[in-house]
């Protein structure tokens, strides 16, 4: 990215990280990407009762060029998949993605020829939000968790170090397919 990536690791970088994270999370602008039923709950989040405006996010940008967050709300069909990818590509960095609802997370109840089984086949997802559809409060919870994640994002040398640590942990961890026994 910019100069902040090149700062040496240390107190200065941590301060810059904290500041950048704070700024980014408090004015995250979502892109309008409502597809199906979850879109209605997303609209409900945008209106008075659940009020996403208190987080500075009521301005759903129609143009992906101006948006930071793509909330994929609804089932992604085979015809729509290239469009999802194109909109994601048109968003400038930094960008995040919430897969809202089970259809976006994993294909949901529609395990068939027409639906992409999880939008993470197409775009990298930061938060998976289950529900069919998730209540507006659940979406707000997911957004707040994303805010926490954004606020804690590391930059530059710290990010490189964190990625190495995560990779090492992932290589050590037991794969889900080998966890036998209780399915909980």
């Amino acid at each position: 990215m910019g100069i902040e990536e090149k700062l040496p690791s240390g107190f200065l970088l941590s301060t810059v990280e904290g500041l950048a994270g704070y700024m980014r999370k408090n004015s995250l602008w979502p892109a309008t990407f409502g597809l199906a039923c979850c879109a209605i709950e997303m609209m409900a989040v945008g209106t008075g009762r659940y009020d996403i405006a208190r987080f500075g996010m009521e301005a759903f940008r129609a143009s992906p060029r101006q948006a930071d967050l793509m909330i994929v709300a609804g089932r992604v069909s085979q015809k729509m998949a290239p469009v999802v990818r194109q909109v994601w590509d048109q968003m400038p960095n930094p960008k995040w993605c919430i897969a809202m609802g089970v259809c976006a997370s994993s294909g949901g109840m529609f395990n068939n020829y027409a639906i992409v089984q999880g939008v993470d086949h197409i775009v990298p997802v930061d938060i998976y939000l289950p529900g069919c559809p998730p209540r507006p409060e659940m979406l707000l919870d997911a957004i707040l968790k994303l805010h926490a994640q954004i606020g804690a994002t590391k930059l530059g040398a710290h990010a490189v170090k964190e990625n190495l640590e995560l990779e090492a942990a992932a290589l050590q961890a037991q794969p889900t397919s080998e966890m036998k026994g209780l399915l909980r």
Partner: protein
Amino acid sequence: MTDQATGAATDAYATDTTEGRVFNVSGGDWDEMVAGLGDAPEERIVVNMGPQHPSTHGVLRLILELEGETVTDVRAGIGYLHTGIEKNCEYRNFTQGVTFVTRMDYLSPIFNETVYCLAVEKLLGITDQIPERANVIRVMMMELNRISSHLVAIGTGGMELGAITGMMFGFRERELVLDIFEEIAGLRMNMAYVRPGGVIQDVPDSAIEKIKQLIEVWPTRHKDYVQLLNGQPIWKGRTVGVGYLDLTGCMALGVTGPILRSTGLPHDLRKSQPYCGYETYDFDVITEDTCDAYGRYLIRLNEMGESIKIIAQCVERLSKPGPVMIADKKIAWPAQLALGGDGMGNSLAHIKKIMGESMESLIHHFKLVTEGFRVPAGQVYQAVESPRGELACHLVSDGGTRPWRMHFRDPGFVNLQSTAAMSNGSLVADVIAAVASIDPVMGGVDR
């Protein structure tokens, strides 16, 4: 994008087709494209209002051919939300099908469920055996759903035309209705509440209280909309005369619902071919005769008032207790649901009965849940009046526990064909208003 040389002979952006030269532009390459245009710029512009758009009411792709700001042709590209629900239901029981069908037209889930259940009941031949209380609850839920759907129609229609306050108002009232749904069915949307044989749960008293509050509060909220939009000159300027489709057009294009009623024809399936006991309720069919988007807006607004009337009559009839599921144990869903410590599930009384008291109940429960009931072979077509028009289910059964073929005639699908008839010759902004007045729900259009 790419830095291919744009020679006059081989233009990277232009392809010669039967329609003439077609230039494909994807972004960041305007200068290169224009350089290749040459001296004679093309007259006809084709603009894609693409599936992702804040104003196209869902994932609808509008392909507009423009001359300046005037639309010479508009084509609607659909299929971006195609989920294969109809084929999916061929691999599910008739009862499991309810959960799929409810997600088609996601703004009016109760209508989808009801039309499907009425079709299943018609195939079973048990339409007369559905308990009266179940029918009353079905009517009440349908009218509540009509209110919530029309609120979204008016709200999002307002938002697309720029009346953001209209959207805030619409969703505010909608929250009242969704609270009632949550009280009765456990979910705000996609409830899977109406099942073949009746409804899955009786209406609790707390829900009746909420409904009575809604009925009380409605006239003041209705006045809000009237004051906000009805006489507002910008709203009228954008909707009066826009999206004109007269009776001949409607009949030719198979359009039903508020669009047909805006031509003056009082065609409402609740009156002409009643179901669920609609003939016993007292309500009017709202019509206008302006054939435009403003008339349709007025119809939707006033239909909500009629729905409140019907709901008030339902609440009166619900004071008499009764069963909500058919008495025939071979078809009825075995359990009434109840709220327990870990959420909504089978009521504890039912569990006690099947595990402790009656082997037959256990067997029935097991068979009905795993295998489902068998429906005699044949086909039916059942139609209801959904907020968008005639919603119908064509159900073919082969005598087994799963449908052989299920096809839904969704009103949005048919009504959306009239986009071209409504918008050709108008301005781009009028296309938005016309589509908003059609009020398609892409889940139903694409299924």
